[in-house]
């Protein structure tokens, strides 16, 4: 018997749950002011998420999922990516999308059930929200293939949940990305739950990061509620991809502090105590504590920020609510580049509000 391959999975944390450094911070974080933009972005995300849920509760929005408790991941991913990179989100990534330049108005339109919400004015090449779990992984591999083929120093970044790591698409994509050494970063937002199914039921694997081993690519675990660690690990993965050194899988450990979506009631299946325990580790307070400890953030800043976030979110809501409804004929718009002749009668009927018979 001989050992023919060895692997280890590293976990990175810089700030513990109290916001105290557990080791010297990396360069970019030496000046705590550099971390303030992440804090602001997280608070904006939390404000937006809360508002979206409130709109749903009052019948002004469709089913929507909040990123409460896991804002750090999307925020860092969306902020650290270059503008010209390509992002392929799942449905719980308002933070990342906002950071990428998708407007909150667009997000609200989409979640209200209006296709126009995916016509992002900002990041034109970013993918729309992917509802079918893990499918975006394959799309990201295809995008990365194109970027590499054209020798562009751009990276495809995709996010997914812990549940997504059970889908064939996820593994096939990692494997192809590895084979072709593509510029793509896969980020798992491991919030410990896939609706009612806990992480332990998804897989017997000790970590989700180790799923990278199956594809022969690097896999890293990171404290997903620690902005500094996230930025550090994600930065390295982006650089690796951008410089031609291939894909990375990142497992960011976090926790879903609220229901799966507004259609869910998590009290049915999980212990509220488990949730309480995780409130002590959540990312927003953690970073605030650090900034306060560093004396770069105070009560006034906080109040101003909250007011500003509320205002921005409200402005988006107003704009969203003022959106005229899509005309019925829109069903046939952009279905094909040019509507086939065979469908003209259907389109005409739809436009007139009658499509059948």
């Amino acid at each position: 018997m001989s050992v023919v391959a060895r692997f280890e999975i590293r976990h990175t944390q810089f700030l513990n749950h109290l916001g105290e450094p557990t080791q010297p911070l990396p360069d970019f974080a030496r000046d705590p002011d550099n971390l303030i933009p992440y804090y602001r972005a997280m608070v904006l995300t939390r404000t937006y998420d809360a508002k979206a849920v409130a709109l749903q509760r009052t019948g002004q929005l469709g089913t929507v999922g909040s990123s409460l408790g896991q804002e750090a991941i999307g925020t860092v991913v969306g902020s650290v990516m270059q503008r010209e990179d390509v992002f392929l989100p799942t449905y719980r990534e308002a933070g990342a999308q906002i950071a990428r330049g998708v407007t909150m108005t667009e997000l609200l339109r989409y979640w209200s059930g209006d296709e126009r919400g995916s016509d992002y004015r900002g990041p034109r090449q970013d993918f729309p929200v992917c509802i079918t779990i893990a499918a975006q992984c394959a799309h990201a591999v295809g995008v990365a293939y194109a970027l590499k083929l054209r020798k562009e120093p751009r990276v495809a970044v995709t996010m997914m949940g812990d549940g997504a790591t059970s889908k064939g698409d996820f593994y096939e994509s990692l494997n192809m990305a590895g084979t072709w050494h593509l510029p793509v970063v896969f980020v798992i937002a491991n919030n410990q739950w896939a609706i009612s199914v806990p992480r332990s039921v998804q897989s017997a694997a000790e970590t989700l990061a180790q799923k990278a081993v199956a594809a022969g690519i690097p896999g890293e675990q990171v404290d997903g509620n620690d902005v500094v660690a996230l930025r550090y690990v994600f930065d390295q993965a982006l650089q690796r991809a951008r410089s031609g050194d291939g894909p990375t899988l990142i497992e960011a450990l976090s926790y879903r502090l609220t229901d799966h979506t507004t259609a869910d009631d998590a009290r049915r299946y999980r212990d509220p105590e488990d949730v309480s325990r995780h409130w002590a580790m959540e990312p927003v307070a953690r970073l605030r504590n650090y900034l306060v400890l560093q004396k770069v953030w105070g009560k006034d800043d906080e109040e101003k920020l909250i007011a500003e976030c509320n205002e921005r979110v409200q402005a988006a809501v107003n704009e969203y609510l003022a959106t005229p409804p899509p005309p019925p004929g829109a069903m046939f718009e952009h279905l094909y580049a040019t509507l086939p002749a065979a469908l003209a009668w259907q389109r005409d009927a739809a436009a007139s509000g009658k499509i059948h018979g």
Partner: protein
Amino acid sequence: MAEITLVEAVNLALAGEMERDPSVLVLGEDVGADGGVFRATLGLLGRFGKERVIDTPLAEASIAGISIGMAAQGLKPVAEIQFSGFVYPALDHIVNHASRLRHRTCGRLTCPMVLRTPCGAGIHAPEHHSESVETFFAHVPGLRVVIPSSPARAYGLLLAAIRDPDPVIFLEPTRAYRLFKQEVDDNGQALPLDVCFLNREGSDATIVSWGAMLHEVQIAAARLADEGIMAEVIDVATLKPLDMPTILESVAKTGRCVIVHEASRTGGFGAEIAASIAEHGLLSLLAPVQRVAAPDCVVPLPKLEHYFMPDVDQIVAAVRKTLEFA
């Protein structure tokens, strides 16, 4: 006898059959503690334990695939796919294996599984949650495809599906889950598969439909009756194998036929029925067969959903149109 909803009827059938037959088990995403996202499996975990009420990892292809292995071993897996838009990864195992295991092995191995999935639009759900997928399955030899339209049909047909020795795709119209209640006797009696049900007798036109659309069809028929037009209403219930004799008999009587379904028109299963009528009932037809179906576009997000779905007016108009002839 209690008045229950369609989803409660599904639950009742599952619980009863699990009680009666220890080889029945349910599996799928969130079917355990959560009781399924629609609560179809509510309470089963507590009653039957986690070995028979299995929360699977998130992997539709394998939910179907492992069901085949279980079924070949004599279990009766009832697998749930959470929404019909997620059923496509399961298709490979269903088409290439479930539907043919018996045939390929000359009956040595069999596949008595049920694949349940909610289907259809009308509940303002997000993308991919509102698909009508019956067509994909109804073309596949070796399968049964069943869609209930009421609580009582759901109860009786699901029992029949579980007891059937071959694979059954059981499509549950989401919109009908809580649309109305009906008295359902939990008597363990299955309804027959492979036959259409006559929901309403009539002499002027035949309306053929299935699933949630029966609701609109019944309203349309009542409205037509007010005008003196007596429509016969047929609930297909089992799409495959299709009971054409019942449909042809009705069309022979009425001479007119309107087929109503929620799936997109082109290549929808209504085409099969219309084609069979054209082949075998042409001479009794007094008017062209009309199809009332969703248009050939992607199920829109909720804002336009109601324009996409066939409605009562359209059904009424189609029946009237058949009456313009002759």
